Each structure stands twice: as structure tokens, then as C-alpha cells.
């Protein structure tokens, strides 16, 4: 207990504190969703939780948004405990669940008005906050939410999560299932919100979105593998990474898996990525061009995952 308080005092600028949180789900095959998670998220930060499906991202979000109780550990939002002060927390946070969770049979405007009402406020009072986003939705304000396109739905959900001027925003996979253009727009909106001094915690399975965050946590199988700025995560990559291209990448991959001079090999896009154990860069495959490349977040993720499993 004393440790945590000390920790919080040292991290005065942190607004979300997570201490040793664990969660598992009972059932025929019990699932450990989160294992001893500790994280500090700073005020005004755009923080990304990066990990594949089933990594535990949603469980962590649900604990922080007071919807789920952790088995062990504790967490606080701006000094408010997620268990004891859950009612207070709900006034100050905005949450956008991974699944579209607005009333599909109500119109865009009715949804927004309803959530404003529920938070005891009005659309007009908070219009400045949502105007850049709502501006794009306004032409469809009389359309039912269920009839909107995927990107529009996300924008409406974001508006509804913002309507009560929260200063912390939790976005659980906001861009999953959204087209690339809308995804890009969405991240621009997040940057704009950050300018308004809102702390944003966002989760995504898309590694390319990680670079858009201030800091990221790489999460896999309920464990946090690394927390750092995206550039730093890349800088921390411990190996020299090479890419190779062949007419048949799968055959190439099979070949290199047989070789004993290769530490890591996997397909990424239209190429095979390779890490060699030492300086022996031999590949027993004809017509291969080898080129050293800068690792991406995805490469870091795969390397860390390999590390964990060893």
C-alpha cells in the first residue's frame, strides 16, 4: 500500500495508475486475461495499447472504466479508485466500447441528445468539443444510427463518448473494421482531441497505428511486454533485421526454418523477415536478395513475443 502511494507521488503527472492488476475468467477452461499489469499513463498523453485479439486489451479497459472488477491489484483514475469511486469516475471519463453500442433505431441526433441528457448536459453546452467531428455527421443527423457506414458510426460513437466533456477517453479498438481512409481521419481527430488536453487511452490490433501514439504498451497473452515511446521501442530492437524476397515466400520460409543459422523468420506483407544468429547470413535458396531494414513496431512485437515464449 505504502509503495503505491509513494509511486503515485513520484508520478505526479500520471493520471491513470494501474498496479499489479490480474484478471481471469472462470469456466470449463479458465482463461487468464490479465497477469500482474502495472502501467502509468500521463496527463494529456495519447497512449496506445497494442496487441492482437485476445491479448487482454478489452478486459483492462473494462476494469478501468469500472465495468469489471479485477481479481487482484488496483487502479485509479486521477486519484479516484476504480472500485470505490466508480460513480464519480463515470462523470469524468468517456468510453467507446469495441462494439458499436449506440441505439441503432434512434437517429444520430437523438442518440447524441440522449447521452447528453443522461449526463445532465446539452449538446449546445459542449458543442465546441465535438464540433470538428459532429460537423461531418451533421448532414446525416436525421438518419438512424443503424443505417450509417462503419466510419460514420465510429464518429458518432466518439461524439457520444465526448458529449459530457470527459478529460480521459478510453477507446477500445475504435478503428477495427473501419476503412483505411476513415481510420486515418479518426486518428487525426484523436490528435486534435489531444490538443484540447484530453488524455486518451486507445487500443488497437493494427501495429501501424502504434506510431501515431505518444507512448505504447505492447500487450500479449495478458502480459505487458514493453512500455515506451514508439520510436524508443524501435530503437530498443536488439538485432539486425533483414528482409528477403523470393518468387515463393512460403517455400523460402520453409527453407530457412530448416537452417540453423537463423534466429527469427516470418512473413510480413510480401517479404520474409529474417534475423540471423551471428554473421553467417547464408540462405540455401536460389535467387535471393537480402537487404537490411529498419524494424517496425510489428517486428518489435514479434521479437518480444518470441522472447516471452523462450
Amino acid at each position, binding site marked *: 500500500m505504502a509503495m503505491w502511494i509513494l509511486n503515485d507521488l513520484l508520478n505526479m503527472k500520471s493520471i491513470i495508475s494501474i498496479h499489479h492488476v490480474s484478471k481471469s475468467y472462470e469456466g470449463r477452461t479458465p482463461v487468464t486475461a490479465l497477469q500482474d499489469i502495472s502501467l502509468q499513463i500521463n496527463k494529456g498523453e495519447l497512449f496506445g495499447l497494442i496487441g492482437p485479439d485476445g491479448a487482454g486489451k478489452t478486459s483492462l479497459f473494462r476494469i478501468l472504466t469500472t465495468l469489471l472488477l479485477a481479481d487482484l491489484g488496483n487502479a485509479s483514475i486521477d486519484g479516484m479508485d476504480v472500485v470505490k469511486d466508480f460513480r464519480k469516475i*463515470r462523470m469524468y471519463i468517456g468510453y467507446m466500447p469495441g462494439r458499436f*453500442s449506440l441505439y*441503432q433505431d434512434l437517429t444520430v441526433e437523438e442518440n447524441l441528445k440522449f447521452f447528453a441528457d443522461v449526463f*445532465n448536459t446539452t449538446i449546445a453546452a459542449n458543442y465546441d468539443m465535438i464540433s470538428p467531428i459532429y460537423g461531418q455527421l451533421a448532414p446525416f443527423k436525421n438518419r438512424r444510427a443503424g443505417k450509417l457506414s462503419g466510419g460514420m458510426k465510429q464518429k458518432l460513437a466518439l461524439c457520444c463518448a465526448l458529449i459530457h466533456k470527459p478529460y480521459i477517453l478510453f477507446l477500445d479498438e475504435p478503428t477495427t473494421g473501419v476503412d483505411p481512409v476513415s481510420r486515418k481521419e479518426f486518428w487525426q481527430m484523436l490528435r486534435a482531441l489531444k490538443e484540447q488536453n484530453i488524455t486518451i487511452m486507445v487500443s488497437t490490433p493494427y501495429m501501424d497505428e502504434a506510431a501515431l501514439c505518444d507512448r505504447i504498451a505492447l500487450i500479449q497473452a495478458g502480459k505487458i511486454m514493453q512500455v515506451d515511446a514508439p520510436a524508443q521501442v524501435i530503437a530498443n530492437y536488439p538485432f539486425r533485421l533483414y528482409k528477403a524476397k523470393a518468387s515463393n515466400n512460403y517455400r523460402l520460409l520453409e527453407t530457412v526454418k530448416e537452417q540453423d543459422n537463423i534466429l527469427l523468420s516470418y512473413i510480413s506483407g510480401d517479404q520474409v523477415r529474417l534475423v540471423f544468429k551471428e554473421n553467417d547470413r547464408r540462405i540455401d535458396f536460389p535467387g535471393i536478395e537480402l537487404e537490411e531494414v529498419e524494424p517496425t513496431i510489428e517486428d518489435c512485437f514479434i521479437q518480444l513475443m518470441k522472447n516471452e515464449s523462450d
Partner: protein
Amino acid sequence: MKALKFLLKKEFLQILRNRFLLAIIVLIPVFELAVLPWAATFEQKNISLCIVDGDHSSYSRRLIEKILSSGYFKLTSHEPDYDHALRRIETGHANLILIIPPAFEKDYVNRQPLKMMLVIDAVDGQKAGLGMSYLSQIILAYNTQIEVEAGNRTGAFINIKPHYRYNDAMRYQNYMVPGILVILVTMMGGMLSALNIVREKEIGTIEQMNVTPVSKSMFILGKLIPFWLLGLINLTIGIFIGWLIYGLFPVGNILNIYLFAFFYLLAFTGFGLMISNFAQTQQQAMLVLIFFLIIFILLSGLFTPISSMPEWAQRVTIFNPVRYFVEIVRLVYMKGSGIHDILPQLYRIFGFIVVFNFLAIVSYRKTQG
């Protein structure tokens, strides 16, 4: 309280927008009341009768005429003997065989003991029982008539003249319509509210509601109030249709029905809530609700009188809220019972309100992680 106002506004907006639901709310009472009371009658007509007349006398012909003129029976054929007649039952052409023995008239006149045989196809138990009792009554009346004509026992026999209190004409509609009103209220008020809550779970909107400052109890109240109202509106539509088609209107104070219906809805929505806590999808909730609803309705006394059920089933009906509402609606409709007469049932419903809602709260606590 302010939040409740917004929740109700939203809920009514959704209900009014749901054309299908609106159509259901209006069409179900119309259909159930316009069609069912005619079909769900306990009166048995058109019982197929096969006659083996071994006597062919004027007495036996008079008896046959009397039976056929009652309107309950339909003569399918005359058969020469029992074996032929039995074949008619086996092939499904007849439900009942009446065998008039040879020398029927002779024995009758000579005041010899007489035996007639009835053979009944009992696959349809109700038809068999009613056919048998109709026929016995007719034969008894025939017997009396002959005696009187012969001047044998004038005034000495017992003449039963039934007087059906509260339903003079013994119309089945008078009896079915109030019962169907109960089913309407149960379905609309009790089932739809539960399904509606599960729907929010299913489409995930409950997740978004849960992060708002709206408390769980407000949320549930916001769900139940519209359906309490819908239940009462449905009751009103039902009462109106009952009056329009059957000219039925409660003899007693109609407010007693509304009073009872209101508390009944409180109890039944508690039951629905309990189910909604366990169900993850509307389909699951629907199946469980239908399972209970069928039991509740079959054991409610709507179709089968409770007093004719076996002892154990009678005991089960004590735990059936539908039973009490069926009793009350019939009492108020036909007998004109007042508030004092319905109090015992009302107290039981209070019990259901407490138990169901308590269980709903407990199961809610248990199912939430």
C-alpha cells in the same frame, strides 16, 4: 429522477418507432379475442354416432330421434351388429356406438330391467367423456318422458332444472374472454420487458449505459414502466374488443381489474427480470419465457378447472401468479366481485412481487462479474 425522464423518453421513442411491435400490440388482442373464444370452447358438437338398433321398434326409433335432435350427435351409420360397428370406430368414422338390444320395446313395456351398451373411442378423452354424459342425459330424459306419457309416475320423478348463476346462457365466451385478457397482459407486460432488457445486452448498448452515471435501478425502472403501461393499454384494448364483439363488460368495478393488473405486472416483470439476468440473447430468454408461460397458462385454470387437476398439480398452481389473475378477472367480469373479494388473491400477488423481485436482485448480483 431526471435521468428516469430521459430514459422513458428514449424508450417511448423506440417503441413508437418499432412498427412491428406496435402492430403486435394492437393485432394480438384483436386476433386472440376475435378468434380464440369461438374456437376454444369446451362444448362438444358433431360427435359421430354409430347405432346398432337390434329392435327396430317405435320405442327405439323415438330414442334415436331424440338423440339426433339434441344437436350434439351426428349419425354416421346404422350397423347390423357390434362387430360392424366396432369397425367404424377402428377406421375413425365413429366416436361412439350405441347398441340397442333386441326386445327393447317389449322389455320396456313389461318393465323388465333394461341394458343398453355404449362403446366410446377414448383417444380424445374430452370428447369421450362429454359424449357419454350427453348421451346418458338424453336417455334419462327419454326415460322420464316415456314414464310420464304412460302415466306411471306423474310428479314422482326428479326434474332437475339447472340455473347457471353469473352466466345464464352458459356461454363459453363469457368465460374465455376474461381469461384471454390475462394472457395478453402477461405476454405484453411480462415478456416484452424481459426481452427488451436482453436486447440491450445483446446489441451491447447496455455497456454504453453502464459507464454513464445512470444507476442500474433507474435503468431498469426506465425499462419496466413503459411495459407496465403497455400491459395496461393492452388490457384496455382487450376489454374494448370483448365488449365490441361479445358485448361483455365487467359486472363489477372495472377499476378492480386495473388495480389487480397493475400489481400483477409488478410481479411478472420481476419474473422477467430474473430471466433476463441469466439470458445472454433474446433467443435464450424467449425459449425460457415460453417454457414457463406454457406451464403457467396450462396450470392457470384457464382451460382446465383447477379443482379437476390431480392433488399435486393443484398444489403447483399455488405458485402460479397467472392462476390468481384468471380467477380475479372472471370473478369481476361475471360475478361482479368487489375489492374485498379479491383481497386474498391480491395478497398472494404481493407475495409474488416480493419473491420475484428479490430473486431478480439476487440473481443480478450473482451474474455480474
